[in-house]
């Protein structure tokens, strides 16, 4: 990542600075014949300062430096030496004295500028070294900040501006940027290396100052890293083009400045748009995320509500079904206990045949009731798990109705309702699942008995071209129109549990069976006016056995 590259910069910068300045120092000491060349107008003292500063930075950029006391001591000693050399030279300039430090290492050659103070570095360089020394010295002080600015930054910041200025001066040929008064100029190499070390010093302290933003993982860090090369290199290059172009006669002042200004505006504008675009993208992504979050949390809420409803329905079903199962079980248990006691007390033979028949018949009916409840519950499980299958066979629907009614005859008598008679008008032969359709008829007839208040119940068959419609009508309590479709749902009943018993599964199963045949089931009713339940089964002409 770019961040890691930037973190490795101090190492590279200090290495470059170290190599260049030590070569120049060695030349001063060992190759006096090369002194005169302009490349080495960097004085021996400046070269020494740069070597020392490079060593200090190389050591200090490691985060663990503080733990290694010897290394830390060396780095601080180097920084202090840089500071001291810079300070003494500055004092020499201001106090107009000679402390004899200028030619301590080597004797200078004399040219126009160095004749006044042989071997002495430029006043700009001396001030730079004072600040560089201090900045490096305080590089690892704990961040007890002075109003947000780290101690080292307080020296690096002006230093970077100063050294940058002198570098620019050389780049654009502006002498006042690198030469003060009558004194010797600062060498371009010195200025450049000081700038580099200063930069390294900034980066070596990545949790402080401008580098903090540059290295941050946030949007700001990302944008600033992307823009950094443009912000620094482009204006410099443009400026260079502007001055050099005019020098070369490519354009005059007016044209040059206009082009320069225009180019700057374009660059700044494109950067502005880039940053705005980044911010916008971030902003809209944030909004989108928030909307998604909202959507997800709504979905979760909905699901939770549905689950809670399902759990409630299941609990109710369990409570109702246990009640429904226990009622026939109670009869069975009491019957068994009656028998037991009769046998014990030898009163068994006192029962008449009719009484005996009634007891056994009761047992039989309770077992049938239990069996039907269990079958209903199993059907629900099958429907829920998708294992509900239809096995079609050919039969006459009217026969089936007659059979079912005949089987339910005792219940009709018990309910004091007359047994319905089916008028056979059209052929009602079809191709359906006989057992399932019988279950449908059974459920609807039992409902009619249960809610019919003992009044007559009628069954009607109507044959349409492609369907057979069966209607079961009672004249009982009826049902609210609004609840009419709801009672086809699972666990729904026309009236509350303690009025009439039942699991609330009958109509649900009816609809499932009819729909599995490709038909439909519905009800018509009004409160107090009785109910009619209809279902239609398709009559397929091309069924294999309908001929």
């Amino acid at each position, binding site marked *: 990542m770019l961040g890691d590259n930037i973190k490795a910069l101090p190492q590279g910068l200090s290495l470059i600075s170290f190599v260049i300045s030590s070569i120049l120092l060695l030349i001063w000491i060992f190759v006096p014949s090369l002194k005169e060349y302009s490349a080495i107008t960097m004085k021996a003292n400046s070269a020494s300062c740069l070597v020392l500063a490079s060593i200090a930075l190389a050591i200090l950029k490691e985060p663990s430096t503080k733990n290694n006391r010897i290394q830390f001591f060396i780095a601080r000693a180097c920084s202090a030496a840089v500071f001291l050399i810079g300070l003494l030279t500055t004092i020499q300039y201001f106090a107009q004295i000679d402390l004899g430090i200028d030619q301590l290492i080597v004797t200078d050659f004399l040219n126009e500028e160095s004749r006044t103070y042989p071997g002495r570095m430029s006043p700009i360089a001396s001030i730079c070294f004072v600040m560089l020394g201090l900045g490096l010295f305080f590089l690892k002080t704990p961040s007890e900040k002075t109003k947000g600015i780290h101690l080292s930054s307080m020296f690096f910041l002006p230093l970077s501006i100063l050294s940058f200025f002198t570098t620019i001066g050389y780049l654009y040929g502006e002498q006042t940027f690198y030469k003060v008064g009558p004194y010797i100029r600062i060498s371009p190499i010195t200025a450049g290396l000081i700038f580099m070390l200063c930069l390294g010093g900034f980066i070596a302290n990545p949790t402080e100052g401008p580098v903090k933003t540059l290295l941050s993982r946030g949007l700001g860090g990302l944008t600033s890293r992307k823009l950094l090369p443009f912000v620094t290199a482009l204006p410099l290059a443009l400026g260079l083009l502007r001055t050099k172009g005019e020098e070369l006669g490519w354009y005059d002042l007016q044209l040059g400045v206009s082009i320069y200004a225009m180019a700057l505006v374009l660059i700044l504008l494109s950067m502005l748009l880039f940053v705005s675009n980044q911010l916008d993208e971030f902003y809209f992504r944030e909004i989108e995320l928030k909307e998604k979050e909202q959507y997800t949390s709504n979905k979760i809420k909905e699901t939770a509500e549905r689950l809670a409803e399902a759990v409630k329905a299941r609990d109710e079903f*369990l*409570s109702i079904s*246990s*009640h*429904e199962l*226990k*009622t026939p*079980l*109670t*009869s*069975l*248990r*009491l*019957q068994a*206990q*009656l028998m037991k*006691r*009769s046998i014990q*007390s030898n*009163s068994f033979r006192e029962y008449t045949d009719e009484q005996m028949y009634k007891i056994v018949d*009761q047992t039989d*009916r*309770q077992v049938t009731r239990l069996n039907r409840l269990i079958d209903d519950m199993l059907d629900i499980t099958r429907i829920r798990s998708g294992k509900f299958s239809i096995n079609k066979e050919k039969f006459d629907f009217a026969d089936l109705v007659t059979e079912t009614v005949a089987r339910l005859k005792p219940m009709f008598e018990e309910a004091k309702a007359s047994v319905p008679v089916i008028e056979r008008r059209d052929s009602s032969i079809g191709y359906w699942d006989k057992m399932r359709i019988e279950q449908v008829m059974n459920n609807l007839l039992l409902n009619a008995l249960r809610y019919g208040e003992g009044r007559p119940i009628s069954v009607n068959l109507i044959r349409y071209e492609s369907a057979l419609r069966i209607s079961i009508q009672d004249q009982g309590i009826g049902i609210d129109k609004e609840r009419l479709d709801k009672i086809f749902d699972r666990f729904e009943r026309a009236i509350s*549990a*303690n*009025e*009439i018993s039942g699991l609330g599964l009958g109509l649900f199963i009816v609809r499932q069976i009819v729909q599995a045949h490709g038909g439909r089931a519905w009800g018509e009713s009004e409160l107090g006016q009785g109910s009619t339940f209809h279902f239609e089964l398709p009559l397929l002409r091309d069924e294999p056995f309908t001929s």
Partner: protein
Amino acid sequence: MSTKILVVDDSEDILILLSMLLRQSGFDVVLASNGEEAFEIVKKDQGIEVVVSDILMPKGDGAWLLAQMKKNKIHTPVIFITAGSDFSRELALEQGAIELIKKPLDIDVLENVIKRVVT
């Protein structure tokens, strides 16, 4: 004179069976198929010593019957029998019942409770 018991249940089967069993044991049994019917009987017949009543019934459930009896200062002890799971013994006692027996009930248990109540 034998103890007179009023048995209330909406299931005809259970009514018949309970009456047969209790009569065999020497009780005098009166039957009602819902709360309203039962209330009319206890109001008129002062001789009833125990009421055995189902809870979940159409036309006046067990709780209703109990409340009506309390209102009319009829203090005949009531034993609840229920197949439901929602009604706890604590709730039944709180409402003023003597005991709650869960269905499918054991006739021996019922008779023991009746005897305990009568003596």
